[in-house]
């Protein structure tokens, strides 16, 4: 017995030191931690939304409803898997697989802690967006292959939205890339991990960084199809959008992919603007770096839930107008401001000047958006 244990021990050591073992050591935690976070988040989201609406939220399964994710998982796994008669079976099957695949793929470049990053690519940010764009294909496949008007409408909406909001998303991310001078996510975090006194060098603490972070969050909300940009799956309009014809485990996969996408884009936001795994104050660096990463991630998730509990869904024309007439010009100005920042001497004048320009542009564009009638109440001739 002891000999067997010894062998096992040696084998584990050999595995851990090999390249494959190293890869497993990096990859397996990602495959375990983030889905677990998904389970926790579904519960927290339902609880939080409940409290926002003065309800209790789920409190039946286990103490305080803590076992609700288990109950949901068992329900999803034991449900009948229904495929529509007219569906394109192969594409219908591939869509959720591709969706989850792309959702997991983006975690490869996310630096979760000082040492934990699966693939420290030189073009990490680009990899993130490239892998994320596969999700659009998956959405299209799901919507088209189901042969249902609702899912096709949902897919069309989702694609129009994702393509429109990808531009402000990438442009606002470019600011951090410009400041760090690198597309590598590891490098971007390293540039923010220093301290002046006790204050960190996070990009969000500069006017362009704060503006970039807000713009990034808005575009990220739209990109991950979360309320108020959840038109692709608007329950009251097109039921569940592109995944209406999925049931059981495949539906659960879509759900998983959606939440993984939200976590991933939050992780990107943290990496680009919130200093990744670095501690918020110099005297707190003794706390392990991954704790800071997940603390920031949970804070952003709470923000997403808060937004979802507050804002109603946009109309399609408002959504498009907001992307093209407001976000896009604003991100372009913002990119310019962030570029000019480098050429001015450090000081309060630079700070106030940049903030002033950004606020002025915001005010002007906002006024135009409000006056152009895009946000005004619309009278419906046939619906009343």
């Amino acid at each position, binding site marked *: 017995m002891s000999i067997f244990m010894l062998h096992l021990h040696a084998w584990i050591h050999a595995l851990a030191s090999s390249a494959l073992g190293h890869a497993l050591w990096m990859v397996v935690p990602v495959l375990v931690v983030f889905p677990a976070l998904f389970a926790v988040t579904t519960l927290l989201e339902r609880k939080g939304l409940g409290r926002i609406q003065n309800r209790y939220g789920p409190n039946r399964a286990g103490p305080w409803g803590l076992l609700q994710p288990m109950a949901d998982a068992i329900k999803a796994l034991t449900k009948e898997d229904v495929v529509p008669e007219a569906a394109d079976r192969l594409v219908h099957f591939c869509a959720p697989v591709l969706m989850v695949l792309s959702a997991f793929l983006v975690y490869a470049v996310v630096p979760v802690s000082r040492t934990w990053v699966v693939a420290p*690519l030189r073009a990490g940010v680009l990899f993130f967006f490239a892998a994320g764009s596969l999700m*659009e294909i998956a959405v299209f496949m799901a919507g088209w292959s189901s042969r249902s008007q609702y899912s096709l409408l949902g897919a069309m909406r989702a694609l129009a939205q994702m393509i429109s909001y990808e531009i402000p998303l990438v442009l606002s991310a470019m600011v951090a890339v410009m400041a760090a001078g690198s597309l590598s996510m590891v490098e971007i975090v390293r540039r923010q991990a220093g301290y002046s006194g006790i204050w960190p060098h996070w990009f969000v603490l500069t006017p362009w960084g704060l503006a970039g972070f807000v713009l990034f969050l808005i575009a990220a909300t739209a990109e991950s199809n979360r309320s108020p940009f959840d038109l692709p799956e608007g329950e009251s309009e097109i039921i569940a959008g592109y995944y209406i014809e999925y049931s059981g485990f495949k539906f659960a996969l879509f759900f998983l992919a959606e939440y993984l996408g939200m976590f991933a884009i939050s992780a990107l936001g943290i990496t680009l603007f919130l200093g990744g795994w670095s501690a918020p104050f110099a005297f707190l660096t003794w706390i392990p770096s991954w704790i800071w990463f997940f603390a920031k991630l949970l804070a952003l998730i709470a923000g997403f839930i808060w937004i979802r509990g507050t804002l109603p869904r946009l109309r399609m024309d408002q959504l498009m107008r907001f992307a093209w007439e407001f976000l896009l010009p604003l991100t372009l100005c913002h990119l310019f401001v962030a570029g000019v920042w480098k050429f001015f001497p450090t000081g309060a004048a630079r700070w106030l000047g940049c903030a002033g320009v950004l606020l002025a542009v915001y005010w002007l564009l906002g006024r135009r958006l409000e006056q152009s009638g895009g946000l005004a109440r619309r009278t419906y001739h046939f619906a009343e």
Partner: protein
Amino acid sequence: MSGEFFLAAGLTVAGALAAMILRNLIHCVLALVAGFAGLAVIYLQLGAQFVGLAQIFVYAGAVAILAAFVILLTQGVEHRTRPAAVLDWVVGALLACGVFAMLAWAIAKSVQFLPQATQRPDAGVRAIGNAMLHQFVLPLEVVGLLLTAALIGAVLTAMRDEEAGA
């Protein structure tokens, strides 16, 4: 010429073939995405991270979706029009041969093809950026202008249609 290269090349060729052969236009688009992905893998194997990822981001992501959109918005997916006539086949084959011959000529003439150029060129983002904004800044601007003109032209065409229809 490793196994991975043949896998990626096989994926590319199979995707491209399927994109031509399949009856259902949406299936063609999806096959095209597979082809783009294979091409991106080849770029990545050559150490060109930026080009490979941009290939996925732009082509597999945006361009394929655009093609799918166009197919869905213009005509029925199911029924294709009559099979191509013999003349179309001949013209198509001639065009393909012409393009292939031109590419082959260009590649054979280039210095890179010679065996001594084994040193891997730096295809990092910084190198590409420097090349684009210093050495090739004029071509870049010209291409940008061309694309803008094309975009404006497309918008104008679409607007005129709308006016005529209304």
